[in-house]
């Protein structure tokens, strides 16, 4: 153990070794880094450490408490599992980016101040885009650029908010920033809004969510597994740390839990279906943070923990299909159960893990639903039941059915590589282990919550929910009422900037060009002269841009002060005269 070293830095710094070693050693390093980070976390004492003084502020680069511990722990476990899944990846770019991405997310979770949080926040953006670009297609490059703009934009908003917040409060500590409620939201400061929106972008709040469904289906099979684990859950952690009990988050979470289901029901790309379902599950966590009681915050943390596992498992199984078949589109898949029986079994376990008894999701989601019931949030409660059934339909049933059961069995498709199967097997075992022994997770949760998920009432009602959802799905498919898979997509909110905004920009450009053409040669010459004059004074050697000597600057400052004195006193002197 290196005292005061943030475990995330072990992954970030260790990843620098990856390009320097041969291919065979890259896998070993990728597996070792999360394990070393995990050992570091388990050996470090609770509390604050790694303090650095910067511009008069005390930065805390390492804070371990119950909330950061549970998120840091699952991030390190996820990094290890994703490393196994990605062992087949050749080259150094993707493994290095993945480790640095995971490391920065872990670093952010253990950040005790807003400046450290911002630094790691931005590193997650910059490193994760390489997991999209690693697909090495023009489409993935464009997607990566859009993703980067959004993610860096979130960082810019965060920095702006942090600067305002520090100016107002004099503190850089990353603790509760505000409780923004449905009653007091009008009084929230600009700093609060900026930070909340920055978190909201990464948490995929409604209208800020499209980066998720845009980027995740375009990354490499293993890249999407990495992406699904960290960015959005880091945002949930940040919300739980900065805005617990902000009940404005409850309606936001409600919308998040509902609307993605309609998209997930008919999207053709199964990885996009999972991205919408991920958005829906984030809604549960946002509701939990918004309710803000001990049980609800513990529920949000537990749901993040379990969701990372079962969503990774679903992305792993669909990623294995993509890896072997070359597509993840429902219209081009089907009948893979015989060719890929293990992958199929793991996909079904991932589906059951969403909310079936004996699996991870059952023991975590119940905490938030119970918290909503206990605090009288009827709308949140009923929506979470609706969303539980809906996500089981659109993800738990439709995804395995579309990939593995419907249609004819394909030819010449091999089972997933052994490393992928091993990763999926481990995640399945973890999900089952947590489902069978929930106290192992509950003991880690903040606020010392105790909860008993395995009451007969809870098991029966949950089985009823799942069985009737399955019956509805089977009947809808059998009677031909479930929408047919089509090689089409549904337009989402990003249409406004990707199509409408693009068209408006193009129109303005054409208008500008035609205006320049209209003003003729004389006008063009005048514009050129203005441009040349600006260039002359502002280019690197220009008068306003070049570096002046101290003496000249001192002379100019003196001259300006003298001029100011003349202007200030001249009227008085004239008046006296």
């Amino acid at each position, binding site marked *: 153990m290196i005292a005061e070293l943030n475990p995330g830095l072990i992954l970030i710094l260790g990843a620098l070794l990856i390009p320097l070693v041969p291919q065979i050693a890259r896998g070993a390093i990728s597996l070792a880094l999360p394990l070393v980070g995990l050992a570091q976390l388990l050996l470090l004492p609770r509390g604050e450490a790694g303090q650095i003084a910067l511009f008069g502020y005390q930065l805390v680069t390492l804070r371990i408490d119950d909330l950061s511990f549970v998120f840091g722990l699952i991030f390190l476990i996820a990094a290890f599992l994703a490393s196994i899944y990605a062992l087949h990846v050749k080259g150094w770019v993707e493994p290095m980016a993945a480790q640095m991405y995971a490391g920065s997310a872990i670093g952010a979770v253990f950040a005790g101040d807003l400046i450290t949080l911002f630094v790691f926040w931005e590193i997650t953006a910059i490193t994760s885009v390489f997991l999209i670009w690693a697909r090495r297609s023009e489409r993935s490059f464009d997607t990566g650029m859009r993703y980067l703009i959004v993610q860096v934009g979130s960082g810019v908003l965060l920095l702006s908010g942090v600067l305002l917040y520090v100016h107002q409060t004099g503190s850089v500590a990353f603790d509760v920033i505000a409780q923004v409620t449905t009653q007091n939201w009008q009084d929230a400061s600009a700093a609060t809004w900026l930070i909340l929106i920055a978190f909201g972008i990464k948490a995929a709040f409604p209208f800020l969510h499209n980066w998720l469904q845009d980027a995740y289906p375009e990354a490499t099979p293993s890249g999407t597994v990495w992406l699904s684990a960290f960015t959005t859950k880091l945002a949930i952690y940040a919300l739980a740390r900065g805005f617990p009990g902000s009940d404005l988050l409850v309606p936001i979470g409600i919308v998040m839990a509902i609307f993605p289901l309609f998209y997930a029901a008919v999207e*053709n790309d199964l990885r996009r279906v999972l991205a919408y379902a991920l958005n829906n599950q984030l809604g549960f966590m946002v509701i939990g943070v918004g309710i803000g009681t001990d049980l609800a915050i513990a529920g949000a943390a537990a749901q993040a923990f379990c969701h990372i596992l079962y969503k990774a498992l679903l992305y792993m199984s669909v990623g294995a299909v993509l890896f072997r078949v070359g597509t993840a589109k429902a219209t081009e898949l089907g009948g893979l159960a015989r060719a890929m029986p293990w992958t199929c079994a793991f996909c079904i376990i991932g589906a059951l893990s969403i909310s079936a008894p004996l699996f991870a999701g059952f023991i975590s989601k119940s905490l938030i639903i119970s918290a909503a019931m206990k605090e009288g949030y009827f709308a949140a409660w009923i929506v979470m*039941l609706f969303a539980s059934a809906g996500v089981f339909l659109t993800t738990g049933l439709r995804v395995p059915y579309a990939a593995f059961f419907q249609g004819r069995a394909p030819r010449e498709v091999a089972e997933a590589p052994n490393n992928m199967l091993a990763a999926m097997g481990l995640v399945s075992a973890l999900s089952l282990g947590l489902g069978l022994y929930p106290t192992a997770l509950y003991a880690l949760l903040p606020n010392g919550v105790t909860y008993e998920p395995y009451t007969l009432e809870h098991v029966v009602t949950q089985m009823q929910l799942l*069985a*009737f959802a399955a019956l509805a799905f089977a009947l809808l498919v059998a009677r031909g009422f479930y929408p047919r*898979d089509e090689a089409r997509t549904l*337009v989402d909110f990003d249409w406004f900037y990707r199509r409408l905004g693009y068209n408006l920009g193009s129109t303005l450009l054409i208008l500008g060009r035609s205006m320049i053409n209209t003003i003729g040669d004389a006008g063009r010459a005048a514009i050129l002269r203005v441009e040349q004059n600006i260039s002359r004074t502002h280019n690197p050697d220009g008068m306003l841009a070049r570096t002046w000597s101290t003496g000249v600057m001192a002379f100019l400052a003196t001259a300006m002060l003298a001029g100011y004195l003349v202007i200030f006193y001249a009227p008085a002197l004239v008046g006296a005269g």
Partner: protein
Amino acid sequence: MPSNKSPAHKGRATNGGAPKAGSRTWVAIAAVAAGLSLAAEFLISKHDSFEIGNSFAFYGWMAALSCLIVVAGAVALRSLLSAPEDLYDR
């Protein structure tokens, strides 16, 4: 990386249409599971804070209704917002 290979198979028969033997099996399995879960309701006494949660088979009909709403909503959305997959590449 094989992700850019051409798909191993394309154009499988889509779902929908007349019920097939396989579909009937799934319906039968799901119906048995649903029936058992309904029967199990007689073994429990429910204590939901919201009264509606204590009504008979609430979680069952709520799930079925939710699925119908999701599918109906998706069909409506598809009729309004359906677009080619390469919409933004054009």
